[in-house]
């Protein structure tokens, strides 16, 4: 999408925007190797600055870990990237050309920025298979959905993802019957079905057993390179096990960036986490 062209996506103040379907995903431009640009992003709720002039760049294929104490703005950051929250100021670009701030949630998801929520949110009433089918990258218009039939290629794709997340045997179980950890994996599977360019993964191992945590770490590591992944996590051992580069957020802006060792030895980080 070129800067001069009118933006095409739905916003509250652009009532007819939705009439034009976004084609942003076709024009993703990552020639500079950076897939996500957040510059000077600020969000405030009733005077409380959840994000304060935050700048963050994510490279293509990178696995980035975000850490920070409660209230540092991690979830708000994800809300901003996925279109749930509109920042008061700043810019968020997907590649060099796609302005995410001009797009709403479905458009951003279709463009290839997909999100796993902190609280596992799968559709309990649907089976594991149906959950994956719903997430699958395809025409998501109402009429197309009505007459949708699964092709063999798509069946293969679902089987492949089931394999990746290790839930082959549960395909026809209602998602509500899965364990907490399995739901987390299913949600990651739903992300994969969307063939995302960027995966935002919010607390993927909360409430998991050690065994499950290890498998999740394996899973995420196997995905890096194919997708750019941002992981928010409190479990430091887990972060250490997957992270190449860690970003520490504090009071709505980036405190420091670096490898896990660098970050853990940074006196400012220690102060933030432990207090004076």
């Amino acid at each position, binding site marked *: 999408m070129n800067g001069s062209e009118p933006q095409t996506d739905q916003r*509250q103040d652009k009532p007819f925007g939705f009439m034009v379907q976004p084609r942003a995903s076709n024009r993703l431009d990552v020639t500079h190797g950076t897939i996500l640009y957040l510059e000077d992003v600020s969000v405030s709720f009733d005077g409380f600055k959840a994000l304060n002039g935050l700048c963050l760049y994510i490279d293509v294929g990178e696995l980035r870990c975000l850490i920070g104490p409660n209230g540092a703005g991690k979830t708000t950051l994800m809300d901003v990237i*996925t279109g749930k929250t509109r920042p008061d100021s700043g810019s968020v670009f997907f590649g060099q050309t796609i302005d995410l701030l001009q797009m709403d949630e479905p458009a951003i998801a279709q463009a290839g920025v997909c999100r796993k929520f902190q609280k596992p*949110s799968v559709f309990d009433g649907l089976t594991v298979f149906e959950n994956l*089918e719903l997430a699958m990258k395809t025409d998501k218009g*109402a009429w197309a959905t009505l007459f949708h039939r699964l092709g063999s290629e798509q069946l293969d794709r679902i089987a492949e993802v089931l394999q990746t997340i290790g839930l082959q045997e549960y395909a026809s179980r*209602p998602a509500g019957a899965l364990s907490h950890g399995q739901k987390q994996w299913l949600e990651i599977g739903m992300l994969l079905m969307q063939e995302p360019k960027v995966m935002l993964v919010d607390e993927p191992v909360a409430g998991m057993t050690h065994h499950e945590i290890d498998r999740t770490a394996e899973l995420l590591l196997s995905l890096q390179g194919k997708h750019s992944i941002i992981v928010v996590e409190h479990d430091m051992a887990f972060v250490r096990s997957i992270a190449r580069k860690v970003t520490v957020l504090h009071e709505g802006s980036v405190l420091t960036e670096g490898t896990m060792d660098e970050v853990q030895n940074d006196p400012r980080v220690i102060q933030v986490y432990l207090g004076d």
Partner: protein
Amino acid sequence: MNGHSFTNHKAGSVVIALVAAVTVLVPLCNAVFPDGSALHFSAYTVSLLGKYMTFALLGLTLDLVWGYCGILALGHGAFFALGGYAIGMYLMRQIGNRGVYGDPVLPDFMVFLNWKELPWYWLGFDQFWFASLMVLIVPGSLAFVFGWLAFRSRVTGVYLSIITQALTYALMLAFFRNEMGFGGNNGLTDFKSILGFTIQSEAVRLALLMISGLSLIGAFLLSRWIIKTKLGRVVTAVRDQESRVRFLGYRVEMFKLWLFVFAAMLAGLAGALYVPQVGIINPSEFSPLNSLEIVVWVALGGRGTLYGAIVGAVLVNYGKTVLTGLLPEIWLFTLGAAFVLVTMFLPRGLVGLLVRDGKES
């Protein structure tokens, strides 16, 4: 595909088979047995059955939006009434010069109001095909415009319920006005004929019953098919976790809109079948209470099952017929109690008592 809704599926088939039996057997009996025989259904019974069919259809459409998509529309009766008015306009024009004032074009109430010519929106309603089209298009358009505004702005939950109620309330006030050109307080009535047949004749009554029954069966099968498609699954997902669906890349508002318009058009059809059978349509059909009654049919029957709405509509209306005949005072008490008891003790309705939910199996 999966055993998830198998039992409901079976129960639904039983209910629809019953509907089909009534649709076929009642006209058959009346054709075979002479008038006065115990197996010959009276005109009253035939009309009553036909009326229940249209109510069941109406309940079914509300179950689509409420039971499957979580949109508790408290103004659903408006679409029913609009469909009824559309066919009522056709029936008024069919009266021709048989009215009290004998005007060949203008309906009686317009002559009475001293109107000289037909308002533009009455043009074309002398054609059956046009009126039939309007039966679907008018409610559909209203649902489209209203739904488009509401769903796009993400008005949900009780807010949506309240503004749908305000919608039907506003329409009721509007249709009460004589200036609207829909007969004001009295509405449209004194119909004489439909497609050239006398509207009071037994043959027409039976035909209307059959058409209502077939429409109900058709609508049920179509709705069941829709629910089984991927669209149905998206819609159910919207009901359970609207924002998650949005993050999967679906335009939630378009799905809601699609279903809302579809349901509104079917509700319009129900209204169009209802009016010739009862012989009148007036603004009280728009009253918020009517729309709330539809909700209680669906709630009592069991929402999110389709056939539950049919069961609920027939049961509640049968109860209403019996009670308003015997003890009119008791009816509102019963209806009020039904609301309270069903919401508190029967969240899955009557069919929830009889049919196991597939989820636990």
